[in-house]
């Protein structure tokens, strides 16, 4: 059984997943409530069933700095007591996979403020990562110039920021990365032995937070 923690966006969630599929998903409250909502939600979800856990999945970023810190720090606490392999999954991949089996190439795109977006392009229903647009932070305008005319599906709250002239913007209801999608992506990787030790998991920020910029500390560890 896998516990998946998704707190990279404004609407976080947690989920339990096993070989039969999704067991349960719990949505956390409003964005600023991740810090209040995550621990009680996991406690409610798991009850005392830690011994049944075989691994963890965490949405590793990029996304909300605060959300990522909350998710990863909490997971480290859990994982110290109940050590299991952790499968970190890029948050843009979780977002892209939320659209289901879509034939078109898609771009997961998250508003990173100040005219920037976090973005990654995935090819076809298998979500092959497109090396030309690997997960990272890009100026929205440059992305529009490069990809705005292509027949792509854009998913995420960064889509209106890029405002592509061609292609399709996925419905707003799909703009949130979800823990059940994260779990479904992570499960086969966990089974294939691709998990890592919890101590080795770090959030992927792809940029400096404002606080860290002012302190001159690099956030990418």
């Amino acid at each position: 059984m896998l516990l998946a923690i998704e707190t990279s966006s404004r609407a976080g969630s947690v989920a339990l997943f096993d070989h039969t599929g999704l067991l349960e998903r719990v949505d956390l409250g409003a964005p600023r409530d991740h810090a209040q909502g995550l621990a009680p939600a996991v406690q409610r979800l798991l009850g005392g069933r830690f011994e049944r856990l075989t691994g963890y999945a965490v949405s590793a970023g990029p996304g909300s700095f605060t959300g990522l810190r909350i998710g990863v720090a909490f997971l480290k606490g859990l994982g110290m007591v109940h050590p299991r392999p952790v499968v970190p999954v890029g948050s843009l991949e979780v977002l892209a996979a939320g659209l289901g089996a879509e034939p078109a190439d898609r771009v997961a795109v998250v508003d990173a403020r100040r005219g920037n977006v976090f973005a990654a392009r995935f090819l076809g229903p298998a979500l092959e990562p497109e090396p030309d647009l690997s997960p990272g932070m890009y100026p929205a305008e440059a992305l529009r110039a490069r990809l705005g005319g292509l027949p792509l599906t854009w998913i995420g709250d960064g889509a209106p920021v890029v405002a592509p002239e061609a292609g399709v913007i996925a419905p707003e209801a799909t703009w949130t990365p979800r823990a059940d999608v994260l779990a479904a992506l992570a499960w086969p990787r966990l089974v294939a032995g691709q998990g890592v030790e919890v101590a080795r998991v770090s959030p992927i920020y792809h940029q400096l937070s404002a606080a860290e910029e002012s302190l001159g500390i690099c956030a990418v560890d």
Partner: protein
Amino acid sequence: MKRLVPVLERTLAEAGVTLDEIDGVAVTAGPGLIGSLLCGVEFAKGLVVATGKPLIGVHHLEGHLAAAFLEDPAPEVPFVALLVSGGHTSLIQVDELGGPYHHLGATRDDAAGEAFDKTAKLLGLGYPGGARIDALAKDGRADRYEFPVLMAGKQNLDFSFSGLKTAAARIIASGALEGQDLADFCAGFQTTVVENLLKKAFAAVRQTGIPRLVLAGGVAANSQLRARALERGRREGVQVFLPSRVNCTDNAAMIARAGYPRLMRGESSGLDLVARAHWPLFEAHPAP
């Protein structure tokens, strides 16, 4: 974030304790840098969700007050605490560890540690520079440069350090300080801070009628502050208590010490505990 797991593993190993033997988890819930606080609080929540043990959110300043209780013998209560760090300069009456705490006085502008750090930065001594000023001051003459007498009002127990900072900046701007000049400057600056802190601290002792003074916070590691506090204490019949230097600066032992009595009383914070960047001590522990 990277160090959370290895540091806890090492601490447990060195103490010869396993996580099963832990009865509760205390964590700094504020005030401070929100990103760091969040990491600590959520890590602690992960530990308590996994173990079913109680979570205890601790106020950072209460941790500093608790540092004295890590020593043997611990100070007798009640006492007056002079809490001086990079972010705080306060006089607090401590009736009991865990409160009530009574506000006696505080800085109206900069914290004492901030005055040290900012001046050290102007001198090009790096950050944090309090310890460097302390070291340089040992070879200096305190009466060489003139610093303003610091006064936030004679009648109250408040502090003010902005005037000193300005005077220091003016002296530094008038010419590069090196060698003996630098040592004299540091001695004068440090003496001004120390004497002002102690003047108000001993006034607080007289005002409350409690003949016990505890130094706490990072600046309490300053050697001149420690020596002068002991000296004045002997002269004025006040018992002065100095936590060891290593317990003055920020550390987790003091947070554990502050959380422990609460754990013993069966108190705990909810899993919805939120880290707070701003959190007045007297809001966390209101006097009855």
